[in-house]
């Protein structure tokens, strides 16, 4: 059975055009899937419908056999613990230390008092430190997050998601604010997480070349609709043009790059 199953997912804001229109696809456990599409195509909204940061208008999202749209309160919080999320702007609490930020990933497992006071068990702390060390941040655990570079902040973001022990990672433009070097480190890290920890990865990307290099499967979205769904090898120039419209001149260049590799 698929880990994530999306059926006829529709999201509209007020009377405006639909942000997402009848989206259906499913993702098997262990896949590395990239969603590509122009800005405003609905990629971010699609990810947020999966962990219900955004409420959907109609359709169904089933994650690990549980229907997400009707979840409320504690059940919704438990569901969210199984899905880690990584953001373009990292979204860390800058005034807190690296370790404190990573431990925020455990809040979903805590009762109110433990969470409010920040009481974490030794096991949880040890696990957080172990994950930070594996991401090369062992030296930085007591640093405040506003002292880190962009690439380091994103790795803290990944650590915060991993400490949840999730089945799946949702990554919303994880490398859009990073320099090429840091971007490569982050994408390599996500690939390792996918292969070694067997965690399913669903990543929104701007860069078609990055999607082609890393993803096992690509979903192309434009104006809230799925235009393409298949392995990178099947993604041809016409489809890229369909996904990105007329602005695809530079993207053809990135396709050539793929064949150069």
């Amino acid at each position, binding site marked *: 059975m698929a880990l994530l199953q999306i059926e006829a997912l529709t999201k509209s804001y007020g009377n405006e055009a639909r942000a997402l229109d009848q989206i259906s696809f499913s993702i098997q456990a262990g896949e590395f899937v990239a969603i590509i599409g122009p800005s405003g195509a609905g990629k971010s909204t699609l990810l947020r419908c999966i*962990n219900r*940061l955004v409420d959907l208008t109609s359709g169904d999202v089933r994650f690990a056999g549980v229907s997400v749209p009707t979840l409320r309160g504690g059940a919704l*919080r*438990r*569901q*969210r*613990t199984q*899905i*880690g*999320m990584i*953001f373009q*702007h990292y*979204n*860390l*609490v*800058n*005034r*807190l230390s690296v370790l*404190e930020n990573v431990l*925020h*990933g455990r*809040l*979903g*497992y*805590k009762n*109110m008092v433990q*969470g*409010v*006071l*920040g009481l974490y068990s030794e096991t949880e702390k040890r696990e957080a430190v172990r994950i930070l060390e594996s991401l090369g941040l062992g030296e930085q655990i007591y640093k*405040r997050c*506003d002292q880190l570079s962009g690439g380091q902040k994103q790795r803290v*973001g990944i650590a*915060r*998601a991993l400490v*949840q022990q999730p089945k799946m990672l*949702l990554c919303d433009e994880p490398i859009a604010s990073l320099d090429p070097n840091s971007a490569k480190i982050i994408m390599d890290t996500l690939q390792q997480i996918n292969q070694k920890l067997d965690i399913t990865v669903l990543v929104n990307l701007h860069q078609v070349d990055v999607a082609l290099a890393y993803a096992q499967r690509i979903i192309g979205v434009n104006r809230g609709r799925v235009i393409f769904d298949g392995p990178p090898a099947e993604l041809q120039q016409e489809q890229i043009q369909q996904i990105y419209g007329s602005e695809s001149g530079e993207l053809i260049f990135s396709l050539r790059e793929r064949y150069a590799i």
Partner: protein
Amino acid sequence: MSQRSEPLPRIRVRPLTRANLSIQLTLLGLTLLTLYSFTTFDTRGIGLVEALQDMLNNFRLLLLEPRLRSVSFADLLEALFVTVGLGLLTTVFGAIIAFFLALFAAQNLAPIWLNNLIKGGTAFIRAVPTVLWVLFFAVAAGMGSVAAVIGMTFHSAGYLIKAYAESFEEIDAGVLEALRASGASWWQTVFQAVVPTSASALLSWTFVRFEINFSTAIAMGATAGAGGIGFDMFMASAFYLDLRELGAFTYAILVFAMALEWFATHMKARLGKSRE
């Protein structure tokens, strides 16, 4: 070259719009009123030179010859302590109440109808001056320290709710979203993200309010019978007509206010250091 013979029209830097015209008319009206009021002063036959001399003499007594007579130095310290206590207590009470209500007044933390309810209520509380709240509560509690504490707490809370809520609203929405995405509850998000992010802003606002409450507490000592240095000043001026003693109280307040300012600056600097 025939155009040159015509005079060029004057260029107005500021066009004569309705707004400009009304401002100019207002200023003219105020000037006329001021001139009129000068001509109608009731000076009761006191000459300007004589009055100035008396005033300077009073300032000399107040500022250059301060000394205590009806109270001892220990009494002065105790009175100052009472006033500081009144200011501090009402600030702490106000801050605690304001913290919890401000969470529900912040747009990014609570539904809009609740924001408007609390913001509307606090706008009303702030619109009425502190002294009037104290007098209002004096009806139930009687004139004295109890009415002063309740009335001043009321106004402090109204002020701090607005200040705190605005600090909360400046928090990056993404951070709150990230904690929600990991399954954190509302209260957990508040204490793990909202409080650490806005702590220094909250401290700043609380200090500002403590300064306000300290000066209000002096006034309350005199007008609402709350005791403290304000009451002693009231006695020295209205009862003993002793300007020298009034001067001593003034200096005591000045010294404390400067110490408070130094302490607040020092605290903020230390917070800033730990932030680096």
